[in-house]
């Protein structure tokens, strides 16, 4: 048996011998590391979920013509009024977006206008259907998404005018008229319920506003400071337009998350400290119990360094076992918490495994610093006499 193997053999034997003490220490260490793991995993998963929710909410940037004076309110997506007659140049916007790849591909062009329907004026929105479909996944459509010759109609309007999917609408504008077939009714609970959605090109033709837009909504992957920077960059590229961040309702959940995370951090700190203290106490009493054994080992000729190494190895091994167990338990707890509280599955984050082991080892070592010093100083004669 080589020296190294013998060393580990002795360490493991010694740990296995003191079953109760070892179990207690492992439990405490596992508790601490499981707490850290589970809090970390929960907080990460929640962050991701919130980010997803923000994403579900829709666009976070909007470009409108400068003179339009639109309100971009906190209440959602009330982008300006129909009567305003300032427009964006579609080509210019496209060029600007090409230079700012951070804006991503999730965006939709809008041209808001008014058309005559059976003698009345209705508000219409010219959109590119595939774009809006990607941008607004939460839209509930009764019927199907239309192609370029179709239209979507808001649920309020449909109810008032008793329009069903399959009906043909005859719309006329200043530059021409058109007949479109309604393929679906959209209900969002918002402004869209009172609009008719048409194909952008068709509406541009009908309004005589070729290449003009009223708004561009963008769902950028960025958040916070990055989003602000992106907006600034786009603003620089677009002279006659305003680039604004849509203040999200979800932002509140972001700040709530921050608070919850802080709370978790505090709890973790308290529990880790408590665990550290309990590890220290257990270790100290174990060293007291083992005084005779340490004295014997020293009397047999072990140098102080060798004894210290033996005891440090015990602590580290306990730490590793505790860390591994703690990661498993912590992951299970995180699964439970996210499932019951947030109704979502926790992420599997292997990066927390080393973190859990390091926390546990650190606690074990810090907790046993005092006892280790005692071991180092112990006088063999006295301890053998049983003092």
């Amino acid at each position, binding site marked *: *048996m*080589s*020296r190294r193997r*013998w*060393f580990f*053999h*002795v360490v493991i*034997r*010694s740990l*296995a*011998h*003191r079953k109760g003490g070892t179990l207690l220490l492992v439990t405490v260490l596992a508790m601490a590391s499981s707490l850290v793991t589970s809090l970390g995993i929960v907080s990460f998963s929640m962050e991701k979920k919130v980010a997803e929710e923000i994403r579900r909410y829709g666009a976070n940037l909007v470009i409108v013509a400068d003179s339009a004076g639109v309100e971009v309110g906190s209440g959602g997506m009330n982008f300006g009024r129909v009567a305003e007659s300032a427009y964006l140049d579609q080509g210019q916007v496209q060029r600007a977006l090409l230079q700012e790849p951070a804006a991503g591909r999730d965006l939709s062009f809008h041209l808001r206008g008014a058309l005559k329907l059976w003698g009345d004026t209705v508000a219409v929105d010219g959109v590119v259907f595939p774009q809006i479909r990607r941008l607004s996944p939460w839209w509930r459509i009764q019927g199907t998404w239309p192609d370029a010759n179709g239209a979507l109609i808001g649920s309020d309007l449909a109810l008032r005018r008793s329009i069903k999917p399959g009906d043909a609408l005859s719309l006329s504008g200043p530059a021409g008229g058109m007949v479109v077939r309604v393929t679906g009714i959209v209900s969002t609970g918002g402004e869209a319920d009172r609009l008719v959605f048409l194909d952008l090109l068709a509406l541009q033709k009908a309004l005589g506003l070729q290449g003009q837009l009223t708004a561009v909504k963008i769902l950028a992957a960025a958040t916070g400071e990055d989003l602000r920077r992106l907006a600034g960059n786009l603003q620089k590229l677009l002279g006659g337009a305003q680039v604004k961040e849509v203040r999200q309702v979800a932002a509140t959940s972001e700040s709530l998350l921050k608070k919850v995370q802080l709370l978790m951090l505090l709890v973790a700190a308290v529990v880790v400290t408590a665990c550290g203290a309990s590890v220290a106490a257990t270790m100290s009493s174990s060293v007291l119990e083992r005084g*005779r*054994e340490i004295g*014997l*080992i*020293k*009397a*047999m*000729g*072990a*140098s*102080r*360094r*060798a004894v210290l190494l033996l005891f440090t190895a015990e602590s580290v091994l306990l730490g590793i076992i505790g860390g591994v167990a703690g990661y498993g338990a912590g992951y299970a707890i995180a699964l439970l918490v996210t499932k019951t509280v947030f109704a979502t599955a926790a992420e599997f984050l292997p990066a927390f495994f080393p973190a859990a082991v390091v926390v546990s080892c650190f606690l074990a070592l810090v907790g046993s610093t005092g006892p280790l010093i005692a071991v180092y100083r112990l006088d*063999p*004669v006295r301890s*053998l006499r049983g003092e």
Partner: protein
Amino acid sequence: MPVESGTCIIETAGLTKRYGDICALAPLDLQVSEGEWLTVMGHSGSGKSTLLNLLGGLDRPTAGRLLVGGEDLLAFSEDHLARFRREAVGIIFQQHHLIPYLTALENVMMAQYFHSVPDQAEARQALERVGLGKRLANRPGELSGGEQQRVCIARAIINSPKLLLGDELTGNLDHKSTRLVMELLKELHEEEHFTLVLVTHNQEVAGWGGRTLFMDDGKLVKDLRHERKGDDPS
């Protein structure tokens, strides 16, 4: 340096040990030659255990000179002293003092480990030599007092020390076990040629050695050379 230092393994001059005001060992001059079997007798508190601890490098004297194997233990650092303990001396204690979570074999190997490298075959041989060939895998708790003491002896001699120290090694044993242990020691002493210093208050044990020191109150009272018991007269 005395002329006979070549064969002298222990040499003390004015060796003193004090614990605060209490004088555990009064200035002591002692010479023990190599291969000798020395017994130290005296009732408890007479300083005989203190002497043993000093000889074994477990404790440091307050004053005086202490040469073991020609080396001055006073000049040793803490780590050097530890090396002296693992290489030059073997100590057998009264209360057996085995590591409870290791088997008999592993207890012997532990001494090898601190000395150099563990060697299972050699440790097994040593245990077979003290008559424990069948109890290698037993923990100390499963061994009788005599057996435990024999494990201790195997452990003490495993690193071939020049000096073997025994502190009341038969204190907890009955008459029969005592006799067995003493016979074993005698056999080993003849084979391995180590110097043996036994501390005891048992008159019978003292009879096995060739020289007995009587101590009282930390002072050497009598130094007696005599016939050895067990040297078969027939």
